[in-house]
């Protein structure tokens, strides 16, 4: 008997009874949409949660920028919501400013960008791009999402914890340096939250590496993998090996806070005029080493998936192969390896001697080479191209100069003598935001516009996308470019009055107002994106399997793919970027098509 059925992508497909029984075990609503083991559902869960936290972290920053633009003025509209402990009469207390600052960093990095970039894009796209039916360990995948969720809830809850003199979250920077972090309020839940998040990451990275090694489709050799997969592969190794020291350090700091140990507490500490009754002989620098041992590779975790996404989109919208695929692969692997031995360039001002400073300076300069190779390869990929200015391509194109600025401004920070002047100033904030905000987050937007059709079977609106892009691009540069000027002028970071108390900042204060207005405008320009994203799920123009005419494996699955992803076993016949091959009828030859057109 010939049975047919409609698959999620809309195609009518022949199904034999046995496969039917296998594919359609009736899982209830909870097991299908909430506690799902399907990498696509988990990826979407990560993406939605990550996007929520990005918005939340962004909102924290918008509130901070009010205090910096108008120090001491009551926060409009929402000021009274914060209560007496945070903003009496709507005027932000310094402690609240510090909470906003510490949590903005923590939430953006650990709850927003990485879950979206790795948990969201990695989970959804990677198995499809390698032709796998799912991840190697679906149950562990599900667990990793829910542990992340718990970590997020813990971090949010930390805003409401009460202590002796007030209420609120961690306020010792996202870096949580002792001794301050050990004695400051709000850190305990932060540390517990971090332990959840790190555990989630470790579970995920084991899954990613195993999946890429073990579940590649027939014909998909390593050097035929899309660069996005390489980027996720290296990222997973960074997470696997670099996160555990921070997990250990988090436990140690928790013990310092709760059990009175002195892992990080030096002898002779005096707090508010009273000597601390602790054993002492601990070392605050030990925390810094363990923290930065993770946090440096972490910044590559932040950027690598974005580079992968941008690479896919550039190849697709230039209708040319990526320039220097081999160089890209070797560079990203070398970068991953080097990222483990540069961390103390965050510690140049801790009293390190010249030998070790020179060591870290050297490794830091060396690591800039693969980054430049990658960026150059992306830039050269544009040469002679017939560019399709789709919304994903707008964001991907902007990534190149934006990451370029971010990367180049990092060089003086990596040179110990220059860092003496620039450390802990707004220059640093400008540098790292350029790489993460118009860098990674633009890459995230690009990826969302690009893979939305695969996940939903519909396209997002191009007009709203263009407004989102141009508004964001202009505003984001106005937010971060002045910070270099402020930093070079000597304005310190983490000061709740915007630097007013120092005479040398006088000429730099005006930028705070400009930055604030640009930041709030940037917030407004995310509205077209939110409307577009949510609205297109229901009302976007329907598409079929391969609306972008792309070459990689995920475009051979239905849009959206069903359980098990592919209707027939995917087989790979060639490399990932066979665009505009001379002599073929179409301007692209997918990896999964047996014969050239």
């Amino acid at each position, binding site marked *: 008997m010939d049975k047919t059925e409609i698959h999620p992508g809309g195609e009518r497909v022949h199904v034999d009874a046995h496969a039917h029984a296998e594919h359609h075990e009736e899982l209830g609503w909870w097991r299908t949409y909430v506690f799902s083991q399907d990498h696509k559902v988990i990826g979407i869960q990560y993406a939605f949660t990550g996007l929520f936290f990005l918005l939340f972290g962004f909102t924290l920053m918008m509130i901070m920028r009010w205090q910096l633009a108008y120090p001491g003025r009551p926060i409009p509209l929402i000021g009274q919501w914060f209560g007496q402990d945070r903003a009496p009469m709507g005027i932000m207390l310094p402690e609240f400013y510090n909470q906003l600052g510490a949590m903005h960093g923590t939430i953006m990095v650990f709850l927003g960008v990485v879950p979206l970039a790795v948990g969201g894009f990695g989970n959804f796209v990677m198995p499809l791009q390698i032709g796998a039916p799912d991840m190697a360990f679906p149950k562990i995948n599900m667990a990793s999402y829910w542990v992340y969720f718990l970590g997020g809830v813990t971090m949010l809850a930390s805003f409401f914890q009460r202590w002796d003199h007030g209420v609120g979250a961690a306020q010792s920077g996202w870096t949580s340096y002792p001794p301050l972090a050990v004695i400051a309020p709000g850190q305990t839940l932060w540390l517990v939250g971090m332990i959840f998040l790190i555990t989630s990451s470790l579970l995920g990275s084991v899954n990613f590496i195993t999946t890429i090694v073990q579940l590649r489709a027939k014909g998909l050799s390593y050097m035929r993998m899309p660069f996005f997969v390489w980027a996720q592969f290296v990222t997973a190794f960074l997470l696997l090996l*670099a996160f555990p020291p921070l997990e250990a350090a988090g436990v140690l700091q928790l013990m310092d806070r709760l059990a009175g140990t002195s892992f990080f507490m030096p002898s002779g500490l005096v707090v508010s005029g009273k000597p601390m009754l602790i054993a002492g002989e601990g070392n605050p620098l030990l925390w810094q080493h363990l923290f930065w041992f993770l946090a440096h590779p972490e910044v590559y975790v932040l950027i690598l998936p974005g580079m992968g996404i941008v690479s896919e989109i550039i190849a697709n919208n230039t209708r040319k192969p990526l320039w220097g695929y081999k160089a890209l692969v070797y560079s990203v692997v070398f970068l991953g390896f080097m990222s483990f*031995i540069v961390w103390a360039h965050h510690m140049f001002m801790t009293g390190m001697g010249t030998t*070790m400073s020179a060591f870290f300076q050297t490794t830091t300069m060396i690591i800039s080479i693969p980054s430049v190779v990658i960026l150059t390869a992306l830039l050269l990929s544009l040469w002679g191209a017939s560019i399709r200015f789709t919304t994903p391509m707008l964001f991907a194109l902007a990534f190149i100069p934006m990451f370029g600025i971010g990367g180049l401004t990092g060089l003086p920070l990596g040179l110990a003598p220059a860092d003496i002047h620039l450390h802990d100033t707004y220059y640093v904030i400008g540098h790292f935001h350029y790489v993460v905000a118009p860098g990674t987050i633009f890459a995230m937007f690009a990826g969302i516009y690009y893979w939305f059709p695969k996940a939903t079977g519909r396209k997002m609106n191009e007009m709203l996308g263009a407004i989102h892009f141009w508004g964001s691009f202009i505003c984001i540069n106005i937010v971060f470019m002045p910070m270099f000027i402020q930093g070079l002028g000597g304005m310190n970071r983490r000061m709740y009055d915007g630097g007013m108390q120092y005479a040398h900042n006088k000429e730099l204060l005006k930028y705070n107002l400009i930055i604030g207005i640009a930041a709030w405008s940037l917030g407004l320009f995310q509205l077209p994106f939110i409307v577009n994203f949510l609205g297109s799920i229901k009302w976007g123009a329907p598409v079929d399997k391969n609306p972008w005419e792309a070459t990689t494996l995920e475009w051979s699955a239905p849009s959206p793919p069903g359980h098990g992803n592919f209707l027939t076993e995917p087989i790979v016949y060639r490399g990932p970027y066979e665009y505009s091959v001379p002599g073929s009828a179409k301007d692209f030859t997918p990896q999964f098509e047996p014969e050239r057109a």
Partner: protein
Amino acid sequence: MHSDPAAIKKSVRTYFMVGAALFAGTVITVSANQVHLAIPIAITVALIIAITKGSMVAAVFMHLSHEKKWIYGALVLTVIGFLVLMTVPMFTMMDSIGTPDAQAGAPHAETPRH
């Protein structure tokens, strides 16, 4: 790998022999401790014995001696990371510019802080 019964039977003998060797190694390491060596030598001896014992556990019990390339590769990377973590922070503290801690002899804690 070794899935056929004859090979496994041979391995069984090896397992028990390694177990005995590990017991012996433990006795040696405790005895070596009774001899009062200078600290650097004591550390070296203890580490050599521990590394020998650990290698036997890894090679034989964990079958690492005939494991696949991917496992070796991941472990080599890990060992490098481990060594970096052991040595580099210490080097930065040895090579520091600053005054040594004035040990004021902080009083002992009576109750843990919250």
